[in-house]
């Protein structure tokens, strides 16, 4: 049983790829963030000796303060100081500042980094910085006249690890709200024991019709689960739908062909098709070669799939998943073979190609609704309702945000901005 391993991999990858940050993705659309504070720095080259008596050494920097960088795992300390009075364009006595660090106020001091003249802040996030260790900092001004250490040192500065990233309250609140909606509707659908209403999605209804036609013509069905790996949710969704499709083809006794781009979706696709045949009560008809690994290479995959279209002449083409430039190559070739074509993707830029060249197209979230729609299971349909309600919340937030920003109130925008 390989699929649970894949599910595990998915669970690990998904939050990085499209899971938790998606909350920020949906909201992040309209957020303008301030430009970052970036410290231009120059190589820590050895300071040249001052030419004797020619140029005076610069006066020191003053007022060094430190602050633990918030919302991190204790990996950084922010420093801020007041420039040397000699750090002006006219006097040009300062070339830059050395950031020095020590575990004792008396030294020994190590050079952390150097920054250019005119820079009065630095974020120490060097790998040598350890959390929960008390450090002392000093800023040395240097110029053609030599190096002047700061008169006093600052510290003890300690980088502390935090348990919560405070800038992500909004993401947490909205994620929780979303989860609550989904779970609530799943629960209530289960309690009532009847399927909540879901509108007709012609594209999904057309899948069965297409399989039926392939059966009449005695030709196979081609199922393309997109061109991305398992860390893409569209691939996951497509593989889930594949099981229902395989169940139908098994019932109709029509062969199915599933070319796959990546190895892990390939093993899952095998499980899904096998599972579909099992559920239809025809495990003996499952052909292990019906699912085939092709290549993660986009156009090699296109060549292989169009080859299948032209040689085996499937009468139904189902394209569900993430697609890129191959969408029209597949759909136009498919049209030329006269097959009935159903497509679905959340890659908005490929939708026009599918709409033009296919008989039916699932747009964006319709793809994600497909498994619930096909199974009709109250729990799954309930989760659709939860997502719909969340969409309403987002619409309300967008309207409220537009109004507030128009009247010069930035509170909501700031609350929604994450770091």
């Amino acid at each position, binding site marked *: 049983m390989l699929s649970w391993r894949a599910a595990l991999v998915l669970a690990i990858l998904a939050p990085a790829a499209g899971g938790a940050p998606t909350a920020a993705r949906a909201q992040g*659309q309209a957020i303008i963030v301030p430009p970052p504070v970036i410290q231009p720095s*120059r*190589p820590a080259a050895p300071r040249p000796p001052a030419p004797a008596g020619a140029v005076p050494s610069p006066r020191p920097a003053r007022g060094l303060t430190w602050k633990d960088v918030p919302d991190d795992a204790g990996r950084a300390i922010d420093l801020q100081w007041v420039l040397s009075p000699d750090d002006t364009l006219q006097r040009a006595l300062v070339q830059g500042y050395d950031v020095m660090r020590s575990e004792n106020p008396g030294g020994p001091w190590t050079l952390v980094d150097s920054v250019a003249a005119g820079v009065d802040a630095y974020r120490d996030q060097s790998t040598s910085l350890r959390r929960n260790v008390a450090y002392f900092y000093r800023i040395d001004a240097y110029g053609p006249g030599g190096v002047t250490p700061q008169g006093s040192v600052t510290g003890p500065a300690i980088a502390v690890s935090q348990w919560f990233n405070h800038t992500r309250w909004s993401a947490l609140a909205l994620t929780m709200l979303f989860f609550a909606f989904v779970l609530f509707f799943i629960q209530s659908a289960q309690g009532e024991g009847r399927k909540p209403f879901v509108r007709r999605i012609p594209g999904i209804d057309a899948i069965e019709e297409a399989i039926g036609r392939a059966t009449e013509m005695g030709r196979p069905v081609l199922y393309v689960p997109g061109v991305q790996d398992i860390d893409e949710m569209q691939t996951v969704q497509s593989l889930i739908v594949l099981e229902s499709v395989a169940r139908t083809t098994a019932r109709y006794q029509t062969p199915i062909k599933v070319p796959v781009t990546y190895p892990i979706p390939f093993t899952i696709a095998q499980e899904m098709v096998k599972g579909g045949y099992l559920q239809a009560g025809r495990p003996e008809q499952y052909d292990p070669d019906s699912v085939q690994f092709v290549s993660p290479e*986009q156009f090699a995959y296109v060549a292989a799939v169009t080859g299948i279209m032209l040689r085996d002449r499937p009468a139904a083409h189902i394209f569900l998943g993430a697609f890129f430039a191959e969408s029209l190559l597949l759909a136009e070739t498919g049209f030329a073979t006269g097959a009935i074509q159903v497509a679905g993707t959340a890659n908005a*830029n490929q939708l026009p190609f599918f709409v033009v060249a296919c008989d039916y197209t699932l747009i964006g979230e319709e793809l994600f609704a497909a498994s619930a729609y096909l199974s009709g299971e109250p729990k799954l349909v309930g989760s659709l309702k939860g997502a719909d309600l969340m969409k309403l919340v987002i619409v309300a937030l967008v309207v409220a945000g537009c109004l507030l920003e128009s009247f010069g109130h930035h509170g909501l925008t700031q609350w929604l901005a994450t770091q």
Partner: protein
Amino acid sequence: MSALDRLARLDRRWIFLVTGLLVLIPLLWPLNLPLTPAPPVRAYHDAIASVPPGSHVLVSADFDPAARPELEPMLRTTLRQLLQRRCKVVVVVLYQGGPLLVDQIVRDVAAAQGAVYGRDLVNLGFKAGNEAVMVLMGQSIPNTFPRDQSGADVRTLPVMRDVRNYSSFRLLVSIATGYPGTKEYVQQVQGRFHIPIVAGVTAVTAPTMYPYLQSGQLRGLLGGMAGAAEYERLMNERGAASRGMDAQSLAHVFVALCIVLGNLAQRARARREEG
């Protein structure tokens, strides 16, 4: 049989032939149509032009030979502009078909600009893992890419001396054909690490980048060969993209014509069937 009837039955290979000729002819005999840079292209150019000399810029070149005609001119012109400004350029590749292609381009431009590899620029090569790599780079770039494309220890290269993570860079340039690409940088990196990003993408993905452009998450955008050509125009160059634009102009006109003719032919057929 009328002309429109014949058109309705047209073998699509005739369309292929005309498309091919319309692309080929202007490449051989250029028309030199004038170029007007669009605002996102100007913003892209200006974002790079405002990076102080000497500061580091991260260039993520994520494309393969398929997207070469559109994205290679962007990468070349971008590297030229950066090196002319004396910026320190760090190149990475997250797209699996790209490393060799990108390395050739990087070395080519560096040689032409008289830049010294390892001092003025470095190509850290390819790392598999998509968004996970982007996030890892936020922790440490030398740890994520311990060796460069040619296998040298990056910690020994002068250009990498001050490079830790995204905070070491003034700007991130994402030149990308698909996944992983600009969208993922905006979602994973801009949101978390707040580095300014400009992007160059293929024409087909350009429309999906407009939300990010409008929200300021992208500072500038080059869309397809047209974007590359307008950028070349701003840099007073006439490179591969500018030469390709004549071909693209004619092809676009032809596609527009196809829509009109297709509809006329369809109407004629429908009328005949009614009659």
